[in-house]
């Protein structure tokens, strides 16, 4: 258990700390690439622990299905701008199948959807951002299911977490180091989009969580996952 906690703390804290201290200590050097590498390394522990665990075939298929659904959702809802069910589906997966499944669904959705929308140096950041949204949702799963207020708060927060990570990326990429004024400026300019994302997450979760949850619960009992 202690081992597990240490691993979680390492994953949650070490990487942001390294990125921030690195960019404060050496402001004249380009840290965009280093941050990309760090983000890739941040995803590795999740993949390793998933790889080493014994998982049933059905769980594998479920994660694949949820990933495919969230990627397909990005296409399906393309007529309605800004309303994308990806985050909501990642949260639902995490709530019902645990934080690890949530992380994997988030990270893989980012990679796979970028095959259609264009890979770039931002891919690892998207992987990390969606993965961490799913991971935290998995940790809070019982509260999210029981308490509606926490569910609403978290779905709003998830949009903020996502755009926070992506704003760090924008700053590092365009400046080569962590420029606080640039970070604040990009946060302010992205604020309306963040708000729309958060609200769309909320709408999707409010509409989808109950029906999908029912289906998943029935599914879990019927097939014993």
């Amino acid at each position, binding site marked *: 258990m202690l081992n597990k906690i240490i691993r979680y703390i390492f994953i949650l804290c070490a990487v942001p700390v390294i990125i921030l201290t690195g960019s404060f200590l050496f402001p*004249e050097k*380009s840290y*965009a*690439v280093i941050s990309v590498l760090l983000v890739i390394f941040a995803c590795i522990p999740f*993949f390793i622990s*998933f*790889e080493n665990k014994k*998982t*049933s*075939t*059905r769980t*594998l*298929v*479920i*994660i*694949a*299905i949820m*990933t*495919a*659904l969230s*990627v*397909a*959702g990005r*296409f*399906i*809802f393309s*007529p*309605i701008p800004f*309303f994308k*069910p990806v985050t909501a589906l990642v949260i639902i997966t995490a709530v019902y199948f645990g934080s690890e499944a949530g992380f*994997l669904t988030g990270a*893989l959705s980012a*990679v*796979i959807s970028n*095959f259609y929308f*264009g*890979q*770039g*140096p931002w891919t690892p950041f998207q992987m990390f951002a969606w993965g961490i949204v799913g991971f935290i949702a998995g940790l809070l799963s019982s509260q999210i299911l029981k308490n509606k207020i926490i569910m609403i708060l978290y779905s709003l927060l998830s949009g903020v977490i996502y755009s926070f990570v992506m704003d760090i990326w924008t700053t590092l*990429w*365009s*400046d*080569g180091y962590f*420029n606080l*004024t*640039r970070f604040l*400026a990009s946060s302010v300019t992205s604020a309306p989009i963040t708000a729309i994302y958060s609200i769309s997450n909320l*709408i*999707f979760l409010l*509409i*989808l969580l109950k*029906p*999908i949850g029912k*289906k*998943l619960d029935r*599914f879990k009992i019927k*097939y014993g996952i």
Partner: protein
Amino acid sequence: MKAFSNFHPVVIFIYFIAVFSVSMFIQNPVYLFISMTGSFLFLCVLNTIKTTIISFLKYIPFTVLITILNPLFSHNGATPLFFINDNAFTLEALIYGSVLALMILCVIFWFKCFNIIFNSEKILFLFGKISPKISLIFSMALHFIPNFSKYFNEVLSVQKKMKSNSKLKLYINCFSAVITHSFETSVDTADSMSARGHSTGKVTNFGRFRFKTNDFILLISIITLIILTYIAIVADNTKVVYYPVIIFSNSGISAFISYISFAVLCFLPGIYEIKEDLKWKYSISKI
């Protein structure tokens, strides 16, 4: 006409890492300019010249924006051009901004080539051995996506005829139907996988890639060229300092060799594609 993508995925991956490591890390305009022209040539061969030029023109406002924004955010540099609210708008910051813009453009263009050359099949081949479970999920998800989109369109066309909801509600209802359907089919998939012995032994991957002599030659030449490039970089012979004053050190023959070998590295795939194309046309004209 993607002759370069016929090489072994490992070799192609190493090639892109080599090019990216210089174009992302090294803030020397000479390297960046070489890298930019190389990626431009490669993309011209992969797409048509017209689409490449159009996509290049699309990025010009973006590069101008980055160039101008940099001096507004960073006030380092020794030669102020003018002052805005007591903050200096310096020449050095402006030049650094343009170098940054060039760097970003380079990476975007190389990634465009990467997207065309490096498809999901190659990714699966590359990571299948390292992480069998995740690449299995990956390939299954890739298989499900078009199925779900197709099924969604079927449901949508029926639902549209039946009742007129608001657009968002309609889409969400249909999406919910897709979810139910996908769960039901997933059990079949999982059961048939178990029946065929999944999770009883090692997962093997199908890959139609073989490591040929050509791959070996390309690998050796990539490694030699990148080592020749990095000799000057490590020795600080091609170092550029931007703040407070721009110092452009271009000392000696090693810098020259470094530039030349990086140029060969960047132009390699474009020239290879052109060569293969000519060969193909020549062989057709003989018939």
